[in-house]
């Protein structure tokens, strides 16, 4: 993992690391690179993927129209809001 590759991942995930954190992160990626390399020693040929650890079935139910939460409730946790909307910076300049 290079600093450039790491910065690309930071950008993808929409946060920044400090320079010291980037150096630490590169060391951790190297550590995990070794750990993941050991995975290849485990033979998984002809072994299928297992996404769910327990048997799962899709659950369907009829759609029912109802008011789940009021506008006031939804806005109550907003960091910034007007009377009826979330406030975000202008998207189109």
């Amino acid at each position, binding site marked *: *993992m290079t600093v450039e590759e*790491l910065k690309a*991942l*930071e950008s*993808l*995930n*929409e*946060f*920044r*690391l400090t320079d010291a*954190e980037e150096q*630490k*992160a590169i060391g*951790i*990626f190297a*550590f*995990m690179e070794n*750990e*993941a390399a*050991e*995975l*290849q*020693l*485990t033979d*998984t040929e002809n*072994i*299928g*993927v*297992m*996404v*769910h*650890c*327990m048997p*799962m079935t*899709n*659950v369907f*139910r009829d759609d029912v129209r109802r008011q789940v*939460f009021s506008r006031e*409730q*939804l806005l*109550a*946790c*907003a*960091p*910034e809001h007007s009377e009826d909307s*979330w406030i*975000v*910076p*202008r*998207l189109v*300049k």
Partner: protein
Amino acid sequence: MDFFAAEIDRTGTVAVDDTILVKGFETRAGSHILDGFTPMFGSDAVERMLAAGFAVRGKSHTGEFGLDIAGETSYHGVCRKSDGTLSSAAAEAVASGTVRQALCVDVNGAPRRAAALSGVDFIKPTYGTVSRYGIIPTACSGEQVGVCAADAAGLTELLSVIAGHDSKDGTSLPTEKYDYSADMDLSGMKVAAVRELYDAADDNVKAALDAFSAKLRKAGASVEFISLPDVKAYATAWQIMLSAEACNNISRYDGVKFGYRTPEYRDIDELYVNSRTEGMGFNVKMNVLYGSDVLSKNKYLSCYDKSLRIRRLASDKMKEVFAEADAVLCPAMSASSLPQYDLADTFERTKKELLFTAVPNLTGIPALVTGGIQLWSAAFGENVLLSIASNTERMAD
């Protein structure tokens, strides 16, 4: 540090970890990014508990999104035991008698390690037996709500209340109610001790395992060593999967609809980036970065896809083990105490501790910590684990 992020009812006997929603009370999952988030509904586990007459004492501090060793990365600081070493707020609240029980989310084994550090019990039940509706998700395919208590009776009492099918949770299993009351005789029970995990623990933990094995034998059970040669691969597979799942789950925190918003921004991009940069700790960011890396085109097959195949191998291997043994005995962590350390090292240190705890998260089987050691059983084998715990707790040291 006090135990609670929010005090709810001073007469309450149950602590609820800050990753589990309690209607009307601020819930932050130990993170600055969720500052100000007050849920409009409660988790299914808490609603069942309240309906059964239990009261919530408070929201116990947790490590940020449950991704650390034992709760030490909480935005609100570490929880110290009286000797200065670390454990979780929930485990210490139980150990001190402040509450009788606690509900905790087991993402990577942190509540199991904390129970071992604080000398209390914790059970992570079979995946899908307790609803995950209303918990703040980190690694959906393996995390599970569990119970912390001073003894097995406390575990049984609360687990019996919160377990059962919930139509609101797509991962909830169909059984309506589970009976955890069987107090089984240990005579004739077969317990398998994992050689690789025993060897990886320090001398104090080995001594605790030896003492526990002696108790089991005294009660008529047999204890034999077995080998899980791929156990390190199982731990790495769970690290890869939990980071990948955390990366997706944590992407929703952006400072727009709820939680923390940076005061410094000029446009929407700066709002996202500054809110997430200021709102999350290094260990969470590291998990997110690693998760997005293993999901990338170059790593997907060798890391993520490989881990999904190793999950099947691990599941098949554990079925093989439980065809011969009633329970598995192993350490809950590598050492019996957790001194303060540089939190920049949390990712690597937690990965190393996953060796002891990943299998139950990866394969969905139940795990129980008692007397500083850990037990696993086959899926739906909670009665075996609770019986071992209750029987050994009744025996003098």
